[in-house]
Each structure stands twice: as structure tokens, then as C-alpha cells.
């Protein structure tokens, strides 16, 4: 052949040459490769493997199952004409893929964080579990039919093992098992089961299976491309449309009653900042009737990363961070009422525009000697602070001021603190967590939280309340986590998606005790 210039052959001549030459070639390596049964069943087995075993890093918990569903779709598409059960398997794969895609898209939104989504999510989870079980059973029946047709005795061990395995996994999920050894054992068992299924299918290789090839009008590549494109579109929509809390913004109505006006004057005289007074609800303002003293502390805090500046001091080069802008202005106000009761306000105002309008959180860690007043209820580990825990958000737009209550303003029973738990301690229950979002437009965005109470130990000298503001910097965290969730997880450091800013109200409360 090397004496002939093959490029002078036309296509037909060269094909004839190849066909002629191929007759002499040993065939054994390629029998499996061209076997349509093997191609299809390999896709199916790999598909089942990838959708079940998840690896929770580098996004593999999303990528691998997606690949698995696409392989299942391909494999069962090739086998769907072999028997009814394979057709059922193919049909079940479609809604399973749809459910998985829906789950992925919701992870790009705040929906899983919403109480209203809890029930639909639970229903969809159960539907998914039952469909998965049915899928395995259908596959088992499909394989058995094939084996019966081939005159090969059905072997049920591996499939029964798979169904049992899946049942155990569901149980572990239900009881929220957190251990390590059992899941590792289950993964090994799963690999063994899949290997056994692969061996069973290899036995059927010899039968070949004249998979009656149906004309393909739409290539697998196109189908996969469309699915991925739709998924990407869904994720983008979720990110663009579902990344803020739904807030109930209304135009502000200022109180004009004489009592309110007189009270504002009194408080202003005592040092209460007028601009903060303008932001209070009428109820909060009226709670300050009979105010005796007002303590005000202000601090400006940076949300940006600042810039590093180096300076020689003596022989040493020192680096400091300089902030040209300090975006957040905190105003902490303590109003002393009668009988050593106090009403506290933690007010914040964004002094700069142009930041990402995602989720925000305001977290208060109040002095452990403080007793919060007002009726409260506990539900699912969350203390709802009742009428004495208040606050609202505000912004200005086109000459009007808009207000909204917090999306959630609660007293979590426990906020995890990794450092404290290492030394066997936990944080007390004087915490407040507010979740909210601002709109993309508008200016002068601000808000406050207020609470009433008293020190439960009159000998305490200082009162302190730490205020942490968590701001979401961009929309690219996945799955979506809110600023409030970051607080509840006890994460203390900044990262690519969230920035924490902390201030405090601290003053010598004993000076004001009678």
C-alpha cells in the first residue's frame, strides 16, 4: 500500500480498498465496541452511578448528576423499543431530569429560603424519591425481560440489592444521619452493585440485541445542547430575578399629631438625631414618651476593601489599610425610659450608591445581662420577639420616601459560633437577626432595629450590643445563600460573595441607674 499514492484514489476506490483490506482483520476486539446493546447499557449504568453518588466539591454535586441524567436519556432512548419496561425507563428519565433541572434552577434563587416554598419542596422531594425507586424497579423488569427472551436465567440479586440500597439511603436521609462510616460503606456497596449489574449486562452482550435502529431525526448532541441551553437560561433567570427578598414597600406617612410633634422636639433637645427620628415608625416614636436620657454613638464603617499603604517607621516597613470611603453610617441610640427601662435603636444608612442589591442582614448580639421586653413566642427554634422588637427599612425615590418591614426580624435561639463551640461554650439567646433587601434603584437606603428592655443586674457597669451588617456583594454564589444564612452558619470571615461590617453600642449604663 505504501507504493501507491492513496490520495490519487477517488472515494469509491479507496472505500473498496478499505473494505477489501478489512476482511483480513481480526475481529474480536471490536465485537463489544459495535454491540449496540453494550453501548446503550453502559450509558444506563454509568448514568445510574453518576446520579446517585454525589461528590460535594468543585460543583461536582451538580455536574455529575446532570451528566448522569443525560447518559440515562441517551441509553434508554436507544433501548426504548426493546420492551415496554425500557420505554417506561426512558419516559421516567424525562421528568426526573426535569425535576433535577428545576432543583438546580431553584438553587439559583431565594425560593428555598422562603417559608412558602417549604411544602412544595417537600412534595417535590418525595416525588423524586418515589420516581427513583420506580425507575430502579422498571429497569429491573426490563433487564429480566431481555434475559428471558435470550433464554438466560434472570438474576435478581443485583437489582434487589440496588432497591434495598436505595431504601436505606432514603432512611438515612430521613433521620438526617451525619456520620461518616455508614455513607462510605454505602458508596462501596453501590459500586459493587453497579459492577454486578455491569457483569450481568455483559452476559447479554453475546446475545447482541438487534436493537432495531430507528432513524435519528434529532441528534443526541442537539438534544443535549438544548437541555443545557434551557438549564443555563433557567439559572440565569433565577439569578437575575430571584436574588432579592420580596419586600412590601409603601410610601411613608409621617405623623402630624401634636403629641408626635412635641415628642420629636423633646427628643431632639435631648440629643436624638433628627434624621433618625424621621425614620422611626409612629409606634416606635411614641414608645419614647417619658424619655429621660438619650445616649448617641455614631460610627462610619467601610464596606470596601480599602487600599494598602506602606510606611517606614524606624527600620520597619509597616502596612496599613486606608479607606477612602466609609459607606455605612451606624447611629446607635439608647433612650432611657422610666424604671430603668431602655429603648435601644441601631440605625444604619448607606452613604454611597452603586452596590449590588442582593440580600442584607443585620445581626445584633446584645449584652447577656439584658432582658428583652415584650411578648415572644418560640417556633422551630426561633424566638419571635413580639411587639417590642421592631424596625423598618427606608429609601428615597423621586421625592418620596418608601418604607417596608423586614422580610424577617427574629431572635434565633442559637447562632452557631465555631470558635465558642470548640471550647464548649455557646452564645446566649440575646440575638436578633433581620433579613431584608433593598431595590436596585432609590437612594439614601437606610433602616433600623429597635428593642426594649432592662439590665437584669443593676450592678452591671456597661451595656454592650454588637451590631454586624452582612452585605451580599454579588449574585454569583451558588447555591444561593442569603446574608442571614451566612450569619446563622457562624461564618466570621469575608469571602468573594459577602462582606461583614461590625460596630457596637457600648456605654456606661450604671451612670444612669437610679
Amino acid at each position: 500500500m505504501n507504493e501507491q499514492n492513496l490520495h490519487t484514489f477517488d472515494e469509491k476506490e479507496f472505500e473498496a480498498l478499505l473494505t477489501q483490506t478489512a476482511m483480513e482483520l481480526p475481529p474480536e476486539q471490536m465485537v463489544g465496541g459495535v454491540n449496540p446493546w453494550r453501548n446503550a447499557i453502559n450509558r444506563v449504568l454509568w448514568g445510574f452511578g453518576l446520579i446517585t453518588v454525589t461528590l460535594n466539591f468543585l460543583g461536582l454535586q451538580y455536574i455529575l448528576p446532570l451528566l448522569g441524567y443525560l447518559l440515562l436519556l441517551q441509553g434508554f432512548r436507544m433501548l426504548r423499543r426493546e420492551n415496554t419496561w425500557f420505554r417506561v425507563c426512558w419516559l421516567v428519565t424525562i421528568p426526573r431530569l426535569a425535576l433535577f433541572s428545576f432543583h438546580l434552577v431553584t438553587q439559583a434563587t431565594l425560593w428555598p429560603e422562603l417559608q412558602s416554598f417549604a411544602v412544595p419542596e417537600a412534595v417535590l422531594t418525595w416525588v423524586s424519591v418515589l420516581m427513583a425507586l420506580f425507575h430502579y424497579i422498571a429497569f429491573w423488569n426490563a433487564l429480566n425481560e431481555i434475559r428471558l427472551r435470550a433464554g438466560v436465567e434472570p438474576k435478581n440479586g443485583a437489582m434487589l440489592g440496588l432497591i434495598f440500597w436505595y431504601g436505606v439511603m432514603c432512611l438515612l436521609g430521613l433521620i438526617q444521619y451525619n456520620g461518616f462510616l455508614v455513607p462510605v460503606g454505602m458508596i462501596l456497596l453501590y459500586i459493587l452493585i453497579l459492577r454486578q449489574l455491569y457483569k450481568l449486562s455483559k452476559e447479554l452482550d453475546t446475545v447482541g440485541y438487534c436493537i432495531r435502529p430507528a432513524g435519528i431525526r434529532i441528534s443526541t448532541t442537539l438534544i443535549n445542547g438544548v437541555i443545557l441551553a434551557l438549564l443555563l437560561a433557567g439559572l440565569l433567570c433565577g439569578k437575575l430575578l430571584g436574588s432579592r427578598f420580596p419586600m412590601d414597600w409603601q410610601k411613608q406617612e409621617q405623623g402630624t399629631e401634636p403629641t408626635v410633634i412635641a415628642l420629636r422636639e423633646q427628643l431632639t433637645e435631648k440629643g436624638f438625631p433628627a434624621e433618625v427620628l424621621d425614620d422611626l415608625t409612629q409606634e416606635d416614636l411614641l414608645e419614647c414618651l417619658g424619655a429621660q436620657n438619650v445616649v448617641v454613638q455614631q460610627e462610619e464603617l467601610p464596606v470596601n476593601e480599602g487600599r494598602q499603604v506602606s510606611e517606614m517607621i524606624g527600620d520597619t516597613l509597616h502596612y496599613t489599610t486606608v479607606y477612602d470611603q466609609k459607606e455605612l453610617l451606624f447611629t446607635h441610640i439608647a433612650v432611657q425610659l422610666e424604671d430603668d427601662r431602655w429603648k435601644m435603636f441601631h440605625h444604619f444608612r448607606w452613604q454611597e450608591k452603586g452596590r449590588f442589591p442582593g440580600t442584607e442582614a443585620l445581626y445584633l448580639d446584645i449584652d447577656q445581662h439584658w432582658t428583652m421586653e415584650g411578648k415572644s413566642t418560640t417556633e422551630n427554634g426561633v424566638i419571635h420577639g413580639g411587639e417590642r422588637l421592631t424596625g423598618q427599612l427606608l429609601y428615597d425615590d423621586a421625592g418620596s420616601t418608601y418604607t417596608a418591614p423586614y422580610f424577617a426580624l427574629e431572635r434565633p435561639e442559637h447562632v452557631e459560633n465555631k470558635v465558642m463551640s470548640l471550647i464548649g461554650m455557646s452564645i446566649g439567646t440575646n440575638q436578633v437577626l433581620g433579613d431584608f433587601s433593598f431595590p436596585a434603584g432609590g437612594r439614601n437606603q437606610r433602616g433600623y432595629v429597635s428593642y426594649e428592655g432592662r439590665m437584669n443586674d443593676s450592678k452591671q457597669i456597661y451595656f454592650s450590643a454588637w451590631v454586624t451588617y452582612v452585605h451580599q456583594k454579588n449574585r454569583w454564589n451558588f447555591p444561593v445563600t442569603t446574608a442571614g444564612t451566612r450569619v446563622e452558619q457562624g461564618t466570621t470571615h469575608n469571602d468573594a460573595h459577602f462582606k461583614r461590617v461590625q460596630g457596637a453600642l457600648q456605654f456606661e449604663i450604671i451612670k444612669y441607674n437610679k
Partner: protein
Amino acid sequence: MEISEMIRRIRLRDPKGAEAFLARFGPLLRYVIAPILPQREEQEECLQEVALKVWERIERFDPERGNFTAWLTALAKNTALNQRRKLPPTGEPLDGTFPSPEPGPEERMLRQEQAAQLKRALLELSEGERNLFYRKYYYLQPVAQIAAELGQTERAVEGRLYRLRRKLKDLLGGERDE
């Protein structure tokens, strides 16, 4: 019944071995024969002939030289090709992809040399390309069947075959006329 047991029974001329053979390998044989003999009656006739050959030649199968399925598919393909050559002309243009009748000694030597060169060239192909080559040029599967089984359109398969042939031309030698 295990394959080894089935082979043993066939060697002992046990009819149960023949029954097990047809039940188990019938679909595979039809799969291999169908691209070469499209007519159903011709396929059945060929299948019977293959079964007879297996019955008569089972002693020639040596498990140490390859597996039974590979031996069987080669036997089925060659039987189908022989049957195809015996068919009367249908008036349709001869398909150049079907191999010519039995060569003479000189021709046989040339083919063996070409086969060795082609085998070396095939090793340089990817697994997918090799798979495609065998489907088209060994199993003689039509483009429609290949496309359906690979989940691609016929046009995509034709494109892949065209690129495969160009690659083989380059690997097997010869300079392109630019």
C-alpha cells in the same frame, strides 16, 4: 446455560446445545447478517447455514485464540458475504463497498500485506474512530444503522466517515496533491 457448557454439548452433538445456541446467539447473528443481506428470507437462510457450520466446525474453535463471539461473528459475516455473491444480479449498480470474490495467491499476499499496514494505522486512531471503521468496513453496516445506534444524524456520520478516510489515507502513506 453457560457458553462453555453450550460448546461442550455441541461438540457432543447434543441437540440441547444447538437449541441453546440459537436461542442465545440468534439475535447477534441476525444483527451481523442483516446489513449484508437485507431480505428477511435470505437472512433466515444464512442463519441456518451459519448454525450448520457451527455444528460442523465447532472443533475448529480454539478458546485460546479468541472468544467464541468473535469467532462466531466472523463466521456469520463471511457466510453472509458468500451468500450475497451467489445472489443473481438485481440490476442495481454494484455497491463498490462489498468485497470482490476469492482472490488468487498473489492477490491474497498483497491483501495480507495491506491488512498488516491497515492494522498498524488503525492503532493510531481513537477508539471512536476505530469503532466507526469496523462498523462500516468490517460489519458493512449502512450509514442509517450506524447513525441510529450512535445517536447521530446520517449527515454527521457521513462527515465522520469522510474525515476518517482522509486520516487513513494520510496514515497509510501518499502525499496529498495540494
